[in-house]
């Protein structure tokens, strides 16, 4: 009941009706998730295209023939929009509070899909509600050439297209991980569900794996507990000096590849050779001097540390990677050979796949003989990017509107 004694479900519908519908959709969704044993099936090409076209035609028809009907008017009301934004945001909030996709998940919250909301009926319904309302809002507003209306279109249609294409295309997204080596070309991989994809249509061979590392850090460690005691950082580079916790450190020698022979490290570029540093440490309180070699060791060689006192030792941490990349050769079915280098943040494209640098043999580090790549195919990406581009233009206009009163 509202102030003017409107009975619920009497037109025009307001917040009460909109929120009741939105909440019912989500409750119905979670109920379906609870009763259905199997997971919601994902739609693929070309079914998703048909559904997409059908939805667009349906929205256009509703708008063209029934726009004066009260229920269609209700769909493009701001109050309805607010209910759609709220219910969608509510599900996003649940996703932000309940850890998603955990393999250990069980119990009631797992059974009603609260641990996998993206793939729940509740989310599907909430998103459909949002897309239908947003679609009807756009159609009712129409397209005019007034700057304000263009901006409205950019913001609303941009969001609609992004959400629409991203959700319809989700089933066509392929992500396959494969481990490449220097001896054979690999043409099969494992997708996100752990299924083996026997033939990717391309084969990849590793030519060279390269890794650049930062200088290793040194840490003062408690002998018994293994805790790191120093707060300020100290890099092991030749000539570096540092004052930490009453100790003065002086790195007098540093080798990037070193091998221990008779207690002394020599610079040797041997397979698996770790870095080593010679450190002179002087205690500023009692002037005791300790010196010796530090090395983090490797899968092949033992490391070394410096004893500072009965309770503390100085150790070298394993160097952290600065950059890593794989020089690969990609063989396509048409006989084309692509030779290129993949870096983190710099994928390459080949035969419809985007190839990403993901990982390497962590234990062997810079001596890794393999490289883990990910191949991604997303046929809908261009539509999504177009939506994102429209939204960006809309955001720029919005900045201009907000700034009309000359804040900047």
């Amino acid at each position: 009941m509202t102030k003017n004694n409107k009975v619920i479900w009497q037109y025009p519908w307001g917040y009460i009706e909109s929120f009741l519908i939105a909440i019912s959709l989500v409750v119905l969704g979670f109920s379906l998730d609870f009763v259905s044993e199997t997971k919601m099936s994902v739609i693929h090409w070309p079914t998703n295209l048909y559904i997409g076209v059908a939805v667009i035609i349906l929205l256009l028809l509703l708008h063209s023939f029934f726009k004066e009907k009260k229920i269609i008017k209700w769909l493009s009301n701001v109050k309805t929009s607010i209910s759609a934004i709220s219910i969608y945001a509510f599900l996003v909030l649940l996703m932000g509070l309940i850890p998603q996709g955990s393999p250990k998940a069980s119990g009631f919250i797992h059974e009603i899909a609260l641990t996998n909301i993206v793939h729940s009926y509740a989310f599907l319904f909430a998103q459909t509600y949002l897309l239908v309302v947003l679609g009807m809002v756009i159609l009712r507003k129409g397209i005019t050439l007034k700057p304000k209306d263009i901006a409205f279109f950019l913001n609303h249609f941009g969001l609609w297209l992004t959400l629409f294409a991203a959700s319809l295309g989700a089933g066509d997204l392929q992500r396959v991980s494969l481990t490449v080596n220097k001896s054979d070309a690999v043409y099969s991989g494992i997708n996100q569900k752990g299924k083996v994809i026997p033939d990717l249509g391309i084969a990849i061979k590793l030519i060279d794996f390269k890794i650049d590392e930062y200088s290793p850090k040194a840490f003062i460690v408690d002998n018994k507990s293994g805790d790191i005691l120093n707060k300020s950082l100290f890099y092991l580079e030749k000539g570096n000096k540092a004052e930490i916790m009453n100790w003065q450190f002086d790195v007098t020698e540093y080798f990037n590849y070193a091998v221990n022979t008779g207690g002394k490290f020599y610079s040797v570029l041997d397979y698996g050779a770790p870095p080593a540093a010679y450190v002179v440490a002087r205690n500023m309180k009692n002037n005791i001097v300790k010196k010796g070699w530090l090395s983090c060791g490797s899968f092949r060689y033992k490391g070394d540390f410096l004893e500072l006192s009965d309770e503390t030792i100085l150790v070298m941490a394993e160097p952290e990677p600065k950059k890593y990349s794989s020089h690969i050769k990609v063989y396509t079915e048409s006989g084309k050979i692509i030779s290129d280098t993949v870096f983190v943040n710099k994928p390459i494209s080949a035969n419809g796949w985007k190839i990403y640098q993901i990982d390497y043999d962590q234990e062997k580090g810079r001596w890794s003989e393999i490289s883990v790549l990910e191949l991604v195919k997303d046929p809908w990406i261009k539509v999504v990017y177009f939506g994102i581009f429209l939204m960006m233009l809309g955001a720029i206009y919005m900045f201009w509107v907000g700034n009309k009163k000359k804040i900047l």
Partner: protein
Amino acid sequence: MNIFNFNNIAFTSIVLWIIAMLFILFDKKIKKAILIGNILTIIGTLLIIVFLSIMWIEIERPPFRTLGETRIWYAVFLPIVGILTFNNWKYKWFLFYSLFLAILFLIINILNPENFDKTLMPALQSPWFVPHVIVYMVSYAFLGVSSLVSAWGIYLLKFKTFKTELLDKADNLVYIGFSFLTLGLLFGALWAKEAWGHYWTWDPKETWALLTWFAYLLYIHFRYRHKKKIVIALWILALAFIILLICWVGINYLAVASNSVHTYGS
């Protein structure tokens, strides 16, 4: 970095800002107080900018990796937003609030000295890194100042002295903040495609960023429809800022954050 030691710079800026606020507070008794206040605020802010530039060169990577580093950036952007809004709208407390927050951030950093780690993991080494983070920080600075309207408005409502035009100012700030928020979110999506293979993976930070975006979207739509419903609008604005804070800092304390790819250097 001897004279340009963080504590020296931060302390100098804090003192300059406090003097600036005193000048502006007593502008009726002192000649040219507003001008002097403005100049002192700007000098204090420039000092932090110089410090950040030197730090950027010294650590050989963009200084955006840790919360401590971003706090210094807020100590730049907040005074800028404060001085712009103060000079346009003549509300002293916009400036006071921004400077107060900036001072608070600097004090937190003085109390928690950070060792500026030179390492930057390969996933963060991208041309998207700087625009993504800067756009977000500008957005947060504007939305942060808009949150003042909500807090102060809720307080004023008790005494029935709230003026509606104040919420119009908040709308301006939200529009600017929201446009940057949208760009930050979308830059993040484009970067994620290059770095992780997909533009959206429902990582906890992404989820909360989207939620923040929806909260302000809700505020904008509510204001558009109900210009007169001040109380609800103020509460939505306050709630939106709380969500923003959870997204920015609170997320590290949530159970979901354990598998986030956004938790760097903590």
